[in-house]
């Protein structure tokens, strides 16, 4: 079994509106199992754009992307949705929890969608994930009753529910204060070391990045350090 879980080959991306600008210039790199990688760079260097291409949500690019050894180009939208559901966990700057559901249900949703386990099992697993993140006491509350830091932890629990191949984060600490950022980073760190979870985190917080195992630095659509 190959150790490479995600591989980008010459990924190139243009923005066409209002002017044609090349944001990514033949980016190639790969991520191994249980690696904790951060992507840094100034704003506008294309790091978020890269992340959304790697996450399969953005399909308008040139080059090749392999997740778990499977090519992602020219796949149908529903197939990509399945890949995201099964293999990728997301944590965004904003928590994106659904206020219509309880915290527990929010965590369960991607698990229910996957349909690999019964509803009861999914619920049990969701509780376990919340326990890992130390917020199992809040499980039955509504997301809008939680603090910002807690919400972000719920979002991380949601990302973990299907035991994804990789967790992708887009500035996951961008909205948090120093203390909460610390907590979130420690969670990531623990996931990487204790659970061998692979992580790919885009951040502009150099302090955060400095503590990760591997740093990819970007500038003007190129990788200048990896």
């Amino acid at each position, binding site marked *: 079994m190959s150790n490479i879980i995600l591989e980008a080959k010459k990924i190139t991306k243009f923005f066409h509106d209002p002017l044609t600008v090349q944001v990514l210039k033949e980016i190639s790199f790969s991520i191994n199992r249980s690696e904790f990688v951060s992507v840094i760079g100034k704003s506008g260097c294309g790091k978020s754009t890269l992340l959304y291409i790697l996450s399969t949500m953005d399909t308008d690019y040139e080059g090749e992307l392999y997740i778990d050894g499977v090519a992602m180009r020219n796949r149908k939208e529903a197939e990509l949705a399945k890949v995201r559901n099964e293999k990728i966990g997301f944590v965004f700057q904003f928590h*994106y929890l659904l206020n219509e559901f309880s915290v527990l249900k929010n965590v369960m949703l991607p698990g229910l969608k996957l349909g690999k386990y019964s509803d009861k099992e999914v619920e049990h697993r969701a509780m376990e994930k919340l326990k890992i993140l130390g917020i199992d006491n809040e499980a039955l509350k509504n997301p809008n009753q939680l603090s910002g830091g807690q919400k972000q932890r719920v979002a991380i629990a949601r990302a973990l529910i299907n035991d994804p191949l990789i967790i992708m984060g887009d500035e996951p600490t961008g909205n948090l204060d120093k203390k909460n950022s610390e907590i979130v980073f420690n969670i990531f760190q623990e996931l990487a070391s204790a659970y061998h979870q692979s992580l790919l985190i885009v951040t502009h917080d150099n302090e955060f990045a400095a503590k990760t195992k591997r740093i990819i630095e970007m500038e003007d659509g190129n990788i200048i350090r990896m």
Partner: protein
Amino acid sequence: MNLKLIADVSKSLLLARWKQTLVAAIGVTFGITMFITLLSFMSGLNDMLDGLILNRTPHIRLYNEIQASEQQPVDLYPAYKNHHNFVRSLKPKDELLQIHNSAPIIEALKKDSRVLGVAPKITAQVFYNVGSIDLTGVINGIDVEEENRLYFFSTYVTSGNYIDLKNTPNSIVLGKGAAEKMMAAIGDVIQVTTSKGERFQLKVVGYFQSGISDIDKVQSYANLNTTQKLLGESTGYITDIQVKLYDILQAPKMAKELHNKFNIEAIDIQTANSQFETGSSVRTLISYAVGVTLLIVAGFGIYNILNMMIYEKMDSIAILKATGFSGNDVNKIFITIALSIGIFGGALGLLFGFGLSALIDQIPFNTASLPTVKTYPINYNPRFYMIGGVFSLVTTYMAGYFPSRKASKIDPVVIIRGK
């Protein structure tokens, strides 16, 4: 797959905005309620008005017309057969209104598989004698049982029992108007003079009210035997044969056929009463148009509410898609929301429609011309409920279709990066 999850998510989204949902559902409910009520009421009225004439009118009436023979002797004479003959001052043949061979004709008609029933009838011109005054009148000699089975005779007999007409010899059911003029109570004996000058005494066993007062002033009913006696004719004497068919639409074709077969006049109901059909079909059309309009308006309400919901729930849709829900799933979620509104609102609408119809059915509606009608007429045709139900689903589906498609096309990257 995942139907339970989709239903679950739809339910949560619906309940999160339950007030809006309720308004949308009420729109559908109102539309369906009015649709059902309007159609039931309108079609009840139609049936009543049609029934006023159509129920009592034979689908085909066979009779003899007093008219000159189509073939005059000169036409039959071989020498002038190919000539163009002019005959002036032609008079009708001395022929009775009687239908010849009425018994075999009735037998033949009864055996016809298209025929529901046959009722023979005699029309006799008489004078009702009130003191020294004579009122003109018509006595219809009928086969009481057949007349009741085919033309609901008993519904028009407002006082007295119709069957007495059969059981009591020399009895008569007087038109209400005629009875009032003669001041004849039930049980009284009245005197009539036939067109041949013979006097006759008849016992009043009931009043007849057709709803058309001009008719009630003139017409009365007696049974066949009494009428034959009245006219001094034998028991075979019959002037009309009334035919009721299973399928009224067959009448014109069959009338022509009977005319040729039995060589007597045959008129079908469509020719005799063409205005009724036009009236009812136009009224039905109008009710459908109004009902459908109401539902379409309700559909626009749903469309608006779903559109708003989608704008509000952009974030939720984006994250659902990011975490593995496909566009198709999102589409299903919003279609489910629309259809739930449709099913819930539609079911309530059918229920309320039934309730409102039942209520209208209780409102008193007394009119002198319609003795049998006591409340507003309602037609509880299950077809209206089927159409209403199907239509509520179709409109809500259409209303949900475009917003759902829009939701399914939302690009999560645009939403998430925009924050």
